[in-house]
């Protein structure tokens, strides 16, 4: 039988005990229980539904519960065209999420505006909120979205617990006018 357990982080093991750093433990927990908030506005959202469904099954990666409340979500998955009129809504959703929070930008529209080079469409969500991982494609296949999620997992597992207090992170948020 295949062992599907998540491998233990680096540490010191002995009879009845295992010692490692707090960063590692927190990273391990965060990585395997990302609660995504699907912000699906168009066809990429349909691909996400397939990703979420039983065939591709995003729960295999610890994202068992898509959270439709930003307060309880760790990962904002933006899937689809964001019209300029939608931009303040997206930004508010992001601001309502508590730290730590990651953003996955799925599809050409969310990443760069895609084919909608027009007056009414936001030319990439990174103009209003910081993005951690970009998934290209129009729309990307579920495997690509899962790949994006796994990249977020990598970030979550290796991130220092103190990163969110760092000067760089504060400056990043400040540059987006998020306080």
């Amino acid at each position, binding site marked *: 039988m295949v062992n599907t357990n998540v491998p233990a982080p680096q540490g010191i093991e002995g009879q009845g005990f295992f010692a490692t750093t707090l960063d590692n433990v927190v990273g391990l927990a965060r990585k395997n229980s990302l609660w995504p908030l699907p912000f699906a506005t168009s066809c990429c959202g349909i691909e996400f539904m397939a990703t979420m469904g039983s065939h591709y099954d995003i729960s295999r990666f610890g994202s068992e519960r898509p959270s439709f409340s930003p307060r309880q979500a760790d990962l904002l998955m933006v899937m689809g065209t964001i019209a*300029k*009129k939608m931009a303040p809504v997206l930004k508010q959703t992001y601001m309502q999420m508590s730290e730590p929070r990651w953003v996955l930008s799925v599809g050409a529209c969310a990443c*760069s*505006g895609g084919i909608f*080079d*027009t*007056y*009414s*469409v936001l*030319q990439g969500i990174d103009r209003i909120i910081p993005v951690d991982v970009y998934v290209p494609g129009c729309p990307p296949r579920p495997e690509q979205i899962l790949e994006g999620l796994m990249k977020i997992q990598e970030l979550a597992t290796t991130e220092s617990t103190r990163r969110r207090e760092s000067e760089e992170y504060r400056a990043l948020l400040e540059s987006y006018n998020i306080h």
Partner: protein
Amino acid sequence: MAYSNEEVLEYLQGTFGPESILDVSEPFGLLSIEVPVSRLIAVVTGLKSHPQFQFTFMTDLCGMHFPEQKGRELGMVYMLHSWGSNTRIRIRTFVPIENPLVPTLEGIYKAANWMERETYDFFGIIFEGHPDLRRILNVDDMDYFPMRKEYPLEDQTRRDKVDEMFGR
């Protein structure tokens, strides 16, 4: 009850005078007329309340912009429909871009309410007497009318389409 385009045209020219019914044509059998903006309400009211024609349904309205037509740059198109005889009529009217005032048809057809707001949103045509003339589709703080031809369709802040990205 069926009636012909000629009958409608005869009624219009007889009631409002030939100087109010301009540029008559019948593309694909659709009676198409132009009216001066000052006679718009009278003509539309006449067509709607006429006992025989009964153009009681507004199918659509939209704006137009022809920058080369000096003094009549902006225009409106109204499509009216008579359910009883399944007949349609197209009415056009033009206004100068400096003073784009068109009387609202909201008092005649409630369907005009949102469509006139949309036309205002995209063309900046001011509908006099409209009860709630504000933007309907675009962001509220947009400061121009995007369907006018002097404005580029593309988003001007996009950087990945500049020539240097393609080695040109």
